[in-house]
């Protein structure tokens, strides 16, 4: 699992995740992702277009980070999920509590608030 950070403008961080968010993938990415986002209370948009697999560990990770960011005045928005990954997001109703958008432009608009 790999992570690439970029600037989405207006103080918003773009995070590209590449790989599989299965148990080993979450184990490898959760600590560095949390460390990059939470202490600074980041407003972050997360690009899921190159995530080939998402299981319940990834759902748990996104809830945990989004909650921690919310306490610090930050925001987490997901976007670009492939159809089968998007189906997992929908099945778990994650989209009820964490904003999920189709593309970076729409995600950044939510992150800007």
């Amino acid at each position, binding site marked *: 699992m790999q992570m690439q950070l970029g600037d989405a403008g207006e103080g918003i961080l773009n995070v590209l995740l590449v790989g599989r968010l299965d148990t080993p993938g979450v184990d490898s990415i959760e600590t560095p992702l949390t460390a990059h986002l939470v202490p600074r209370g980041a407003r972050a948009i997360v690009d899921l277009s190159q995530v080939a697999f998402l299981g319940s560990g990834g759902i748990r990770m996104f809830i945990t980070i989004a909650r921690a960011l*919310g306490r610090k005045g930050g925001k987490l928005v997901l976007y670009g999920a492939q159809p089968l990954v998007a189906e997992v997001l929908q099945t778990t109703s994650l989209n009820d509590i964490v904003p999920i958008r189709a593309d970076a432009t729409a995600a950044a608009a939510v992150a800007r608030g």
Partner: protein
Amino acid sequence: MQPRRVEIRFPGTHEGFAQAFDELRQALDREALDAAARYDCELIFEEIVDNIVSHGAVGDRAPDVHVTLEHGGDSIVLTFDDDGVLFDPRGLPDPVPAKSLQEAKIGGFGLMLVRHAASSLDYVRTSEGRNRLTVKVRRRPGPGGTSVSPQPP
């Protein structure tokens, strides 16, 4: 089509899990599955085995896990057999959808995803004291399965 059967046996540890998942994926590479069926097989394996590894140990002893994949025609069946702590998932409820991020629980999604990916889920505690969970993978119409777009909150 002649049914094909793949058996994977491994210790219920993180290392055993990782090696077995690689074996499963190699086995799935040999099957002519559409993308959705392949994803569902991997999702069911991930969630069930992760649960066995995380909660199935009896004292310090990791469970012995035996997974069987049977594929014939339109039917894909995964059977998980382990000698860990008794665990019958059939009666467990799905998490209640959270009204807010702060109230959201972070557990219970694994079984929810398994139920979604399965057309049936059967459990027996065998006379040898093993859990045996049989999961029939759902099959969906279309070349790549369903296409689901993210919904705005």
